[in-house]
Every structure is written in C-alpha cells, then in structure tokens.
C-alpha cells in the first residue's frame, strides 16, 4: 500500500458517504459529485503538486483511488509502482 494511495484515500474518506473505501471502488457511483471533483483538483494541486489541466479532464482519471494515484504518477513523470 503506497503512501500516495493513503494520501488520496484520506482525501476521499473525509468526503464519501461510505465507511470503507477500497482503492478500486468507483467513486462516482458512491456519491462523489462535481463539488468534490473541484476539491479533488485543489487537493492535487495544493498537496500533491499536480495541476489538473483541461486535457486531463477525463472521468477515468478520477474514477477510483488507484486511478487518481496512476494519474498523479503520470503527471509527475513517475513510473508505476
């Protein structure tokens, strides 16, 4: 379990209506809405140093904790763990 995943899960766990969130759970079908999308973008920028650009606006980049982690690594130019 990576630190990055834990950080991202920490963000979602404070916002999602479900108690237990796995890294592959579909966030959008579990109450993650547009308000939180913008908070997520702000979180990624302010805390993980990744600015979400127009070209990044694909739902699949933000569909799960694992998807967000993969997105962050790609933006940072890092490989998969």
């Amino acid at each position, binding site marked *: 379990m990576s630190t990055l995943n834990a950080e991202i899960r920490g963000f979602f766990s404070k916002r999602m209506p479900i108690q237990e969130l796995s890294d592959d759970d579909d966030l959008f079908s579990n109450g993650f809405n*547009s308000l939180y999308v913008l908070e997520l973008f702000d979180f990624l920028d302010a805390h993980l140093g990744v600015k979400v650009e127009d070209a990044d606006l694909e739902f699949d980049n933000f569909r799960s904790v694992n998807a967000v982690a993969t997105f962050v690594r790609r933006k940072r130019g890092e490989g998969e763990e």
Partner: protein
Amino acid sequence: MELSETQLELRNQCRAFAEAEIAPFADEWDRREAMPVETLRKMGGRGYLGALIPKEYGGGALGRIEFGILNEELGRACSSARSLVTVHSMVCHALNRWGNEAQKRQWLPSLASGETIAAFALSEAEAGSDAQAIRTQAFASQGGYRLEGSKRWVTFGQLADLFLVFARLEDQPTAFLVPAQTEGLRRSAIPDMYGLRASSIAEVHLEQCWIPESAMLARPGMGVQAVASYALGLGRYSVAWGCVGIAQAALEASARYAATRVQFGKALAEHQLIQKMLSDMVTKTRAARQLCIAAGISQERRSSSALLDTLCAKYFASTAAVAIANDALQIHGAQGCSGAAPVQRFLRDAKIMEIIEGSSQIQQILIAHYGTKEYYL
C-alpha cells in the same frame, strides 16, 4: 478576526465609491429596473470587475478576503451592483482556470477593465438547481458549433458583451464563450422581478447561433462538472459576502431610525421588543461576516474545509440577511414599506440571495451530506 490596515483601506475606498456613485441611486435603479451603463464602466475603471483576474491579464489579483470586502461594500449599497461583480467574476474565474492561453489573452484584459461585461448563462426553464438537466444543444457545424436553445434568469444578460453558455454537445454538458453580437443570439428582458431588479435579468435565445471551435471552454462533458461548478463556487462566496452587505445596511438603517423615531414618549430604541430585534440583527450580521471571513481564509489556505466553510457562510448569511431585513422592515413600519426608505428593497434583495448560486435547501443538503461526517466517524 480583525481586518489588516490594507484591508481596512480597501474597505474605506470601496465604501466611499459605493456611497458616492451607487447608494444614492439604488432605489431609483430598482424602480427603473436598470443601472446606467456609465456606472458599470466606472466599476470597471475602479478595478472591481477584474478583481480576481491575474495581474498579467490586467486584473487586480485580489485575495479572497479583499474580494469579500468588495462584495460586502457593494452589497451594502446596492445588491444589483454587487450581482454584476458576482456573475462577471464567475465567468472570469472559470475562464482563467479552464481557458487556454489564446482564450485568456483574447478575453481577460477587456473583462478586467470592464470594457467587456460577462454573463453566466446556465439556467433554463427546466434546469435550475439541477444544472445537469440543461436542454440547450450544441451541434458540430462548419468547423465550429451551432447552438440551439434558451437560457433564463441571466443576470446582466440585457447588457452583457460575452456569455458563458452551457449546452449539450453529443449529450455531454459543455461550456462555450459566446459574444453577444453573434448572429442568432437574441435576448429579451425579464421584467418585474421581486428583487435584484436593477440587474438586467434576461432570457437569452440561441437560434442557429454559430460559434467557432475556439469558443469551447474546457473539453466536452466538463461544462457543468468543472466549469460551472468552479464558477458557482466563487458565486456562492461572493453572494455570501453580498448578504453581509445587505445585513449591514439594514442594521444601520434600523439603528438610525430606532434612535430618532419617537413613540409613546420615547425613542423606538428604548423599547425592549425593538432592542430584541436590534440585538439579533447585530449578532447575526457579525456572525455572518465571521463565517465569510473563515470561508475566505480556508479558500486562501486551500484548506480541506474550504467547501464546507463556504457552504455554511452562504447558507447562514443569506438566511440571516432575510431575517435582518425583515426585522428592519418591522422596525420601520409603514415608512419601511414605502419607497421613501430602502429597507423594502433590502428585504426583496435578501430573499433572492436565498435562491441564487444554490438555494438554501441545496446548501442544507450539501452541508448535511458533507459537513456531518466528521461528527459520526
């Protein structure tokens, strides 16, 4: 929290302008259902319309608290004037966040100066709080897009030079920047509004309205999720501060009236039931302002509580403004119900604030959904 010297100076400057150029005319504008374009240009000249735009595009790059102070002072004078700053800033904010460099260079400098007035065209007859339900369509056409549909309740839509329009492109909500002079764009005034009557509310009709490909803001499908939500987040904050302005104005008017109006041989302010109303007004006004300041600080710090703080500020400030303006009318009695005093305008404007940029019920739903989790985990 106390304001800094710089913030106090900004407040004094905004107040001086609003008291000279806006407040003395607000009731007349309310009756005429329009503000003079000259006043809008003066607001632009003061930098109020480019308050949040980065300096590289000619804006003022104000901080969130400073932007809030501007909204309070304009709202204290005239909510319609404040609403121009709100909607114009919402468009600028979204454009600065999601626009490409060419779009920013094309529009932000003239938006910052007020040469271009922007309006936010999201709502429709069947799409209010449920923004995803928009029916306006965008079709790929001749290397660009053709817009078909109608938008409602567009603040300053009668005067705007540029509209941020939301339409479905292949069923995906998408945002477009549409100049007012575009062929096929027609607007009509919506008269006799209950409040914010001078904010030139319009219906915008789009018929065979062709725009180039470069007019799309952000990619298809992100119109509501990213662009509108981003704009509305700022709108919610701006409106919350505007409510503090209404509350402050209603409180000041009531305190003055209660001190001078004599009934049963003593000033109204010496009657305990009037004191009860005044004390509630003072408390709610101060509480609303502190919630707005807290929201502004959270936003500037990019705190994890920024969304919740802003929701709470908007919900509390708008309901407080209605209660305070209602008490102000009660204290003024028949005088307040007449056109001779602005308090009836304060009450009508305050009620609108409970509806726009997310109704009180939407705020409550979101606060219940988002704000309670930390208390049961």
